[in-house]
C-alpha cells in the first residue's frame, strides 16, 4: 500500500458556507497527510477554518468538495475511532463524573462491566480517583477538563482531535494539562490533531505545526519540530535550544498571514 503510514488523508478539501446573503469559501483545495502516531497542530489567524477543518476530519461536517480518508476509509460521519475534545469540558451537570466518562461507551454500545472498569482505572490514572460519584460542579476547571479527556479516551479512539482544549484554563493548569495530555497520547500511541492559537503550545506538544492562511483557508507553511523539542515534555520543551527561534519564525509567518495582533 503506497500510503500505509498515513492515518489521515485530506484530498483536495474545499468548504463553502452558504448563508441567505452569500456563499463564502472557507477552505480551498487543502491537502494534508498525517502519519500514524503523529501529533500535528494547526495554527492560523481566526477565520482560517481551523475548527471547520477539524469538524470535517471528525465527520461532523461533510466537505463541500474533496475527500477525507481515515485509516484508508472514506469518512462519511462521526465514528468510534476518532475522539473529539472541545474548548471546554461540556460535562453534563446532571451526570456523575463516572457517568460522564462513560457516555461515549453508552452511545457506541460498548458499555459493559469490563469497559466500565477500564474507564474507572483511567479516571484514577488521571488523578481523579474518588471523584466518580461526584458531580461536575464540585470539580475545578482543570479536573473537569481531565474528565473530558477520560471521556474521549474511554472509547479507545485511534485518533484524537483537539479543538483548543486548553484555552479556557488558567495558565498553570494549562501547562500541567499539556504535559498530561501529551504523555498520555504518546503512551497510547494515538494520532492527534490539535487546533490552537497558542504558538508556544503548538511547538511544545507537536511533531509538526501547520500554519494556515485565511480567506480562504489553505496551508501556508509547515514546520517540522526539531527532535530535542519534540522529545521533551511540553513544559521543558519551552527551555530547549531553538524554541525561541522557532517561535519567532512561526510568529512572523502568522503575522504575514494576517494573524497576530491584528486578529479579528
Amino acid at each position: 500500500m503506497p500510503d500505509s503510514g498515513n492515518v489521515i488523508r485530506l484530498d483536495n478539501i474545499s468548504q463553502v458556507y452558504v448563508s441567505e446573503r452569500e456563499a463564502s469559501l472557507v477552505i480551498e483545495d487543502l491537502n494534508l497527510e498525517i502519519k500514524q502516531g503523529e501529533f500535528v497542530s494547526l495554527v492560523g489567524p481566526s477565520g482560517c477554518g481551523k475548527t471547520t477543518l477539524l469538524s470535517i476530519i471528525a465527520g461532523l461536517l461533510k466537505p463541500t468538495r474533496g475527500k477525507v480518508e481515515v485509516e484508508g476509509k472514506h469518512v462519511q460521519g462521526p465514528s468510534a475511532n476518532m475522539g473529539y475534545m472541545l474548548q471546554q469540558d461540556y460535562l453534563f451537570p446532571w451526570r456523575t463524573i463516572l457517568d460522564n466518562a462513560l457516555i461515549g461507551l453508552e452511545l457506541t454500545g460498548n458499555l459493559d462491566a469490563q469497559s466500565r472498569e477500564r474507564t474507572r482505572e483511567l479516571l484514577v490514572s488521571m488523578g481523579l480517583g474518588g471523584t466518580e460519584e461526584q458531580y461536575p460542579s464540585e470539580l475545578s476547571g482543570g479536573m473537569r477538563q481531565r474528565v473530558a479527556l477520560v471521556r474521549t479516551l474511554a472509547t479507545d479512539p485511534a485518533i484524537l482531535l483537539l479543538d483548543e482544549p486548553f484555552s479556557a484554563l488558567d495558565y498553570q493548569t494549562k501547562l500541567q494539562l499539556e504535559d498530561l495530555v501529551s504523555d498520555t497520547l504518546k503512551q497510547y500511541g494515538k494520532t492527534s490533531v490539535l487546533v490552537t492559537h497558542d504558538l508556544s503550545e503548538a511547538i511544545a506538544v507537536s511533531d509538526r505545526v501547520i500554519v494556515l492562511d485565511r480567506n480562504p483557508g489553505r496551508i501556508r507553511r509547515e514546520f517540522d519540530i526539531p527532535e530535542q523539542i519534540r522529545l521533551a515534555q511540553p513544559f521543558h520543551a519551552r527551555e530547549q535550544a531553538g524554541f525561541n527561534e522557532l517561535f519567532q519564525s512561526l510568529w512572523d509567518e502568522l503575522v504575514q498571514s494576517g494573524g497576530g495582533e491584528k486578529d479579528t
Partner: protein
Amino acid sequence: MSQKIPDQGKQEVREIWLEELHRDHHRKMVRWRQHIFAVQLSMLVAMFLLWELAGRLRWIDVLLFSYPSKIFAQIGKDVVSGEIWAHVGVTVGETVVGFLLGTLVGTLLAVLIWWSPFLSKVLDPYMVVFNSMPKVALGPIFIVMFGAGFTAIVMTTLSITVIITTLVVYNSFNEVDPNYVKVIRTFGGERSEIFAKVVFPASFPTIVSTLKVNVGMAWVGVIVGEFLVAKQGLGYLIIYGFQVFNFTLVLSSLLIIAAVATAMYQLVVYAERKLLSSGRRS
C-alpha cells in the same frame, strides 16, 4: 512554650469573638422574620375585624359584602353537612387533570416540533395566533363539542395551558448549548440520543417549573368552565350564589378556592424540589 501560650489565648479570643458576631447576626435574622410575620398576621386580623365591624354596623351592604363570621358559619355548616366536599372534589379533580394533562400534552407537542424543524416553521403562525387570543372565549365551542360537563371544562383548561407550555418548553429545548449536542454527535449519537441524553435532561427543570405556572392557569380554566356549564364545583357555587343573591355563599366559595389553590401550589413547589434534587445540578 512562652510563644505558644499567648497564641493559644489569641485563638480563643478570636473564636469567642467570631461566635459572638455569628450569634448576634442569627438573633437579628430571627427577630427580623418574627417582625415580618407579626405584621402579616396583624394585617390579616385587622382586615377581618374591620370587615366584621363594617358588616355588623351596616357601614357596608351586608347583602353584597357579607361579613367574616357569617362566611365562616356558612363554611362550617357546609363542612358539617358534608355538602361542600363533593364540590371541592369535583373542582380539584378537574384542576389536577387539567394541569397535569396540559403540561404533558404541551411537552409532547414541544418534542414533536423540536423533532421536525419543518413542522415548527409551519405551525409557528398558528401558535402565535392561538397564544395571543383569549382562549376562554372558546368555552362555548367546547360545550357544544363535548357536552356540558367534565370534558368541556378540562378542554377549556387545556386550551389555556397547552400552547404556553409548548412555547416555553420548546424554547428551553432550543436554548440547550449546542456544544453539549456536539459531544453526543462526536460519538456518533443519533437525534433520538441527542434528545434523550442532552436536550430532555437539560430542559427538565423548565418542564417541572411549567407545572407551577400551569396550576395557576388551570384554576382559571376550571372556574371559568364551571361558570359556563357546571352543576357542581366551587365555580358553580359562586355562580349559583350570585344568581340567588347569596353573597355569603359566593365569598365562602372564594375563600375555599384561595385555600385549596394555595395548598395545591405549595404541593407542586414541594414536588418540584423533590424532583430536581434527585439529580443534583450546578
